[in-house]
């Protein structure tokens, strides 16, 4: 007797390693949307890679991929007063330190804007947009540059004086567009609009 189960095959180690793992769920302030991260359960390539996804919370099967998954895009959040998604990514230095970016859910990859302007020795560890949407605060880490392709030797708990993590702030109402190619304006109703 041929059954549906007979046609099924055992799960392979490769399938388990490549299984989609979901993390970093963040719901929008109005509850209408959720953004999240999908990555292979285990590292498959030279660098860790993950993609941003989004879904409408009131519409079944509405999930769609937002970024390609070529780089490590992670820690997404929805801006409290716009449809802009903020996220961390190593897209400008695969496997390196992360920078803070934002994008429009409607335009996905084509609308990616870099928010932080740090050099390759500084990266963003974590961030949070203020409840009113005016500011983004973030923690910056320092990483010593590689020498001859190798990480520098570091003695445990020494040489930290010039490598403390710091708390930084960007006022999103300033004309970021002049610096990063994004245009952000503050309307008379105190709403930030990203163009």
């Amino acid at each position, binding site marked *: 007797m041929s059954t549906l*189960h007979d*046609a*099924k*095959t*055992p*799960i392979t180690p490769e*399938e388990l390693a490549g*299984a*989609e*793992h*979901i*993390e*970093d*769920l*963040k*719901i*929008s*302030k*109005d*509850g209408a949307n*959720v953004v*999240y991260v*999908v990555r292979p359960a285990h590292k498959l390539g030279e660098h860790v890679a993950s993609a941003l*996804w989004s*879904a*409408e*919370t*009131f*519409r*079944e*099967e*509405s*999930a769609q991929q937002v970024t390609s998954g070529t780089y490590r895009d992670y820690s997404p959040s929805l801006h*409290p007063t716009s449809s802009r998604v903020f996220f961390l990514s190593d897209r400008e230095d695969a496997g390196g330190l992360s920078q803070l970016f934002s994008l429009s859910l409607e335009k996905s990859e084509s609308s990616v804007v870099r928010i*932080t*302007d740090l050099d390759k020795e500084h990266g963003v560890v*974590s961030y*949070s947009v*203020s*409840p*009113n949407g*005016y*500011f983004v*605060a973030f*923690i910056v*880490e320092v990483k010593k540059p590689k020498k001859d392709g190798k990480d520098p030797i570091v003695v*445990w*708990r020494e040489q*930290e*004086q010039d490598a*403390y*993590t*710091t*708390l*930084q*702030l*960007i*006022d999103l109402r300033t004309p970021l567009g002049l610096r990063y190619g994004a245009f952000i304006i503050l309307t008379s109703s105190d709403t930030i609009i990203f163009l």
Partner: protein
Amino acid sequence: MKALVNISAHVDSFSWNPDSSAIVYRLLDHRDLESQDFPVKEQIVSISGKVDELGNFTYARMPASHTIWRKLGGFVFLQGVEPSAFCSSTCLWSRPSSAGASTTHLAYGATNDVSSIVDLGLHSQFAVQVAEGFLTKFDVYDEENRVFTAFDAPLDYSVEGEWDMTLTSQGTYVFVAVRSSGVSGQPENIWSGVTELNQLGKISKKLSSHNSWYELKTPLIYKPFNWTGVDGVELEGVITYPEHADPRSLPVFVYPHGGPSS
């Protein structure tokens, strides 16, 4: 870009106050795992960069969550029932915003523990994910710490781990979670649910179809079971084995985990 905190210590984590005028942040002397088990300082800085000396506080060890700064004042966070112990059930604590005030154990930790906490963004409300045996629930606290259960996962699927919730301006609680089921062979996907004050909600909408390849695979059998330990403690477990196999003839790997605090 403006440096708010740039001193001879590592900023480890931070949270905004509800009116976006200040940030509460934690400091570590060293940025390593060992530092998590030593006292952790927490301070407050305004967005103008002025440190509020009255906001200084020291935790016995790194709390198990970030700090939520409530609109009506005070903070809530997760830490062990015994805050100075190396291993202790994670539960819900609060502390006033006034200097020198002591912390208060609000709930949980005896037969359950709290996995995570989220700020609902309105009216000083927050929600916690509580694990007790097989079961997981989302409890919501209002500004006076009155609590109701917004969601209680049934035994036939799991919502452990990733989730989020918001309180909308219309007064509805919208939540999302990663739901999976070994019992019914469902891989993890995003689901959503809605509820209202003092109402038990359901996860009703399946938003994604990740890992659809799993449907073409021979499923694994998952069965929950209970037993009584030699010390009389009631324990719960899940046994997993390939379909059509007799588990009594297979080698056994034991993976101890679960709550409280492990």
